[in-house]
């Protein structure tokens, strides 16, 4: 088996199942009533944290390919990104339920509208979620073709914006202990930094600058 085949036939299915792990834990804890005194809060925090974690893992695929010389890792990226979206949907769903049905005041979107318009940490979190929705909707091969590779890539660079907003959302949410959101922030800065360093190197090498922007990431000099 070639490296690419190995990643496609072994690593990818394994990663698919492993990525369902957090969801399986959650279901188990719901079924066994193991969510503590405030299950809604626990589910909200858990799904949010998992979504952010998957965003970081997704963003680390490209640097990992370069670093490890494992180009076929690209085959995992879309799947992992969609898992980030999946956990973000769960996160938004439980939040949405909490601010509508569970308010106990009848079904009204008033609380959500108030949140999104008045509370910055919700505004940025909601924006990040909308971005992820757009990226998930355009994640199919068909959409890549329809949008054209370059436009598609530029659209999907928004994943960095979504990740940054996600970290901000987390940072603005905590009361005093910023260690955890700060850790996510540092990881994101590291991933962005790795990308920028590579860009600069590529620009510095004339021959590389002429080369077409490979599937790996940012379309260099396309503007």
């Amino acid at each position, binding site marked *: 088996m070639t490296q690419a085949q190995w990643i496609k036939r072994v690593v990818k299915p394994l990663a698919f199942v492993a990525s369902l792990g957090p969801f399986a834990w959650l279901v188990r804890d719901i079924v066994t009533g193991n969510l503590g005194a405030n299950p*809604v809060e626990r589910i909200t925090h858990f799904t949010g944290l998992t979504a952010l974690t998957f965003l970081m893992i997704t963003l680390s695929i490209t640097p990992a390919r370069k670093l490890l010389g494992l180009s076929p890792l690209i085959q995992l990226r879309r799947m992992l990104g969609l898992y980030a979206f999946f956990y973000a949907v769960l996160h938004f769903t439980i939040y949405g339920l909490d601010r509508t049905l569970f308010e106990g005041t009848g079904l009204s979107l008033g609380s959500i509208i108030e949140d999104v318009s008045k509370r910055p940490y919700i505004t940025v979190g909601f924006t990040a979620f909308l971005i992820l929705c757009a990226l998930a909707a355009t994640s199919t091969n068909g959409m890549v073709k329809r949008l054209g590779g370059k436009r598609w890539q530029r659209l999907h660079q928004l994943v960095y914006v979504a990740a940054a907003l996600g970290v901000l959302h987390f940072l603005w949410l905590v009361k*005093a*202990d910023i260690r955890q959101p700060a850790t996510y922030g540092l990881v994101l800065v590291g991933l962005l930094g790795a990308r920028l360093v590579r860009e600069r190197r590529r620009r510095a090498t004339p021959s590389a600058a002429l080369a077409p922007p490979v599937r790996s990431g940012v379309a260099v000099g396309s503007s």
Partner: protein
Amino acid sequence: MLIKRPPDIRSSEITDQSLYLNRRAFIRTTGAAVAAVTAEVVARPLMAAGQGLDDKPTPYQDVTTYNNFYEFGTDKSDPAKHAHTLKPRPWTLRVEGEVLKPKTWDIDEIVTKFPAEERVYRHRCVEAWSMVIPWGGFELGKFLKQAEPTSFAKYVEFTTLHDPKQMPGQRSGVLPWPYVEGLRLDEAMHPLAILVTQLYGRPVPNQNGAPIRLAVPWKYGFKSVKSIVRMRLVREEPNNTWQVVAPHEYGFYANVNPAVDHPRWSQKRERRIGELFKRPTLLFNGYGEQVASLYAGMDLRKYF
């Protein structure tokens, strides 16, 4: 006016101690997984919804495993996990400042001299969750009178133990240590303000603020300072810890008030622990009849 407990919680509504202790065992024995699922996911919230707005005491298990006590970590499950390092004996509590008779009390002397009476209080956290807790304690005012405050005493400043060996959370700089809280003297003298030594008829557990803590039921929970080692009667308003950390979010008064939102979330409604559907938050946490007069003429928006 002596108020032994809020008028709307009858002692008959309190779960019998043996019953709540056996609750988990009962579920387990009757419980095929299906029953447990039904209880947690379907029945519990539905029951809660059908209950209306009563004030059933929150199970001991929830009171002792879900709370904020940053001295043991910032997750609400941390205090129960880490508070075993706290040594509630020997313990002294110093009363000083603008008093004629400053004194260092031994906790056992306090417990003997001030027998605990049960007070079932609503407890509203600033994070918009709430509980109903059967505290045992005595009136703070009676205790303070022992020290004979001078006419200069206008406020009481409370200080939590500062000992990173006993309180591992203090090794981080999450909050400026030690934790400090304060009350206006007339608030402290109010008969609803109590010093707590018991929970559910037993010594208050470490994670809930052993061996002695405050319960001020008309204010957000962070005012009810835990594991107190010092009370100082002072002339000026004390700078309480959360106000120091985030002055635009947490004030000195911190009276429960559905009309004044926290900048990052609404305070209009709250989730009673154990219930799925939220209930309206009441002004002064429902103790307005007793305490509203303390704040007559004050702009509660300004003095939040």
